């Protein structure tokens, strides 16, 4: 499997888009940390950018890459290789290159300016967010053979998790404001990888007081190591299930 991954990775790393993405992330990180003397604020601003940009870039780039590699995947599938190993090689190649871009662009500046527990949580959650949106992209790409439809689906997924989902949650919150919803909120958070990443970082920042009683429940839950591990595990589930499902579909797909 790693035989193919090596070359996929090599191909993507030399891609200008990934280089540009790395530079963009680095520029954003350095400017946020550089302009504000309080690294806490820098981290918060960076978090907001990461939550929008990282999922978007990960899902769009991965979907495009998958469709552009279609003929290459066909060629590989004419070789003595199993479908599963072809698919996972592609996934690992894309996931590794985007993770590398994130680690260089965000990881290095964050460790330089804010190498604390908060910084590390930010890096880990950003990394898992990257992986989970690459997974979702692969799922979108195997569902349809049509590139335009696949791209549309990928954008809808991003739109849903980045914007629509929060709107829905707010709607629920207002409609049922007479009921105690704190536990429900905790559960709803787990259904969105972006929210999960956001909460994980926010809870490390002592600003939960701004979030009312829900914030207090969140604080109780996430500030413990136990809570953090649960949150990380749920985020891992968001990495694994889409790509596992995608691999199953790809296994039976006509190329």
């Amino acid at each position, binding site marked *: 499997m790693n*035989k*193919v991954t090596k070359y996929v990775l090599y*191909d993507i790393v*030399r891609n200008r888009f990934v280089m540009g993405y790395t530079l963009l992330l680095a520029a954003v990180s350095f400017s946020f940390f550089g302009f504000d003397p309080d690294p806490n604020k820098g981290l918060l601003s960076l978090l907001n950018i990461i939550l929008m940009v990282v999922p978007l870039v990960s899902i769009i780039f991965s979907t495009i890459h998958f469709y552009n590699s279609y*003929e*290459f995947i*066909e060629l590989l599938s*004419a070789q003595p290789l199993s479908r599963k190993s072809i698919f996972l090689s592609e996934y690992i190649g894309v996931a590794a290159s985007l993770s590398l871009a994130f680690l260089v662009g965000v990881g290095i500046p964050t460790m330089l300016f804010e190498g604390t527990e908060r910084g590390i949580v930010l890096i880990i959650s950003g990394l898992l967010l990257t992986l989970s949106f690459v997974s979702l992209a692969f799922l979108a790409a195997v569902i349809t053979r049509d590139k335009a439809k696949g791209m549309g689906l990928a954008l809808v997924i991003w739109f849903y998790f980045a914007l629509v989902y929060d709107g829905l949650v707010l709607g629920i919150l207002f409609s049922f404001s007479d009921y105690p919803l704190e536990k429900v909120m905790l559960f709803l958070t787990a259904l969105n990888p972006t929210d999960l990443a956001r909460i994980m970082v926010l809870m490390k920042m002592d600003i939960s007081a701004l979030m009312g009683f829900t914030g207090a429940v969140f604080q109780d839950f996430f500030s413990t190591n136990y809570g953090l591990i649960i949150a990380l595990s749920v985020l891992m589930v968001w990495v694994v299930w889409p790509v596992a499902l995608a691999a199953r579909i790809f296994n039976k797909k006509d190329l």
Partner: protein
Amino acid sequence: MHYFKNIPQALPPMIRAENINKSFGKLQVLRNVSVSLPQGRVVAVIGPNGSGKTTFIKTLLGMVVPDSGTIYVEGRSIANRHDYRAQIGYMPQIGRYPTHLKIKQLFDMMTDLRKENAPKSLDEDLVVAFHLRDMFEKPLGTLSGGTKQKVSAALAFLFNPPILILDEPTAGLDPLSSELLKEKIQREHDNGKLILITSHVMSDLDELATDVLYLQDGSVQFYSSVDDLKLETGEQKLGRAIAQIMSKTATSSKLSETIKI
């Protein structure tokens, strides 16, 4: 009318397809395709556009899984297996490769992938004939369509497989390269390999093919040796012979657009 005759069947078939059916949605692309392809033959797979040629080839390679029916390669069913593909060299219709990879790296990767089943010495005839070594450091994205075609051809032959599947091999090649490729195909035929070629260029097939497998609307219209076909129709050229047979079976108006002599 049955044209299934005089294909030498003394040798065990390299590839055997039994009642292959495949539909894409409502469209049935392959209908009860059953053929035995023996060693040492060059089989021209022809038919109008959309007659199921490429789908048939893809089922042999396991890229398309038939709805029903079984394919045997060297006597074993290929269902849920991938190791048998070490016996096949495949040249796709359009070769598209990772753009930033160099030719050398592509060859290294393929060698890496097929190392276990590959012979000790690689067959680099086409690499030499097409002067690919001079371009080894070029990224694949910068190559012209014809050069990519040369890369695909060289890769198909590289591991000396007993079965070669060539999808439109000469399309896009310049006359010289096209001749070189045909010479190579001829040589491999003399080595006793089974070679499947799809092409719309009848003159190329006339030079190379020993048998013709004619598909239309997903079913086998006839499968016969070229010599018999010519004898039966009294034609000297393959294209004309096929045209005559087809007008006898009188099913096709699409044929005229397909066969260019």
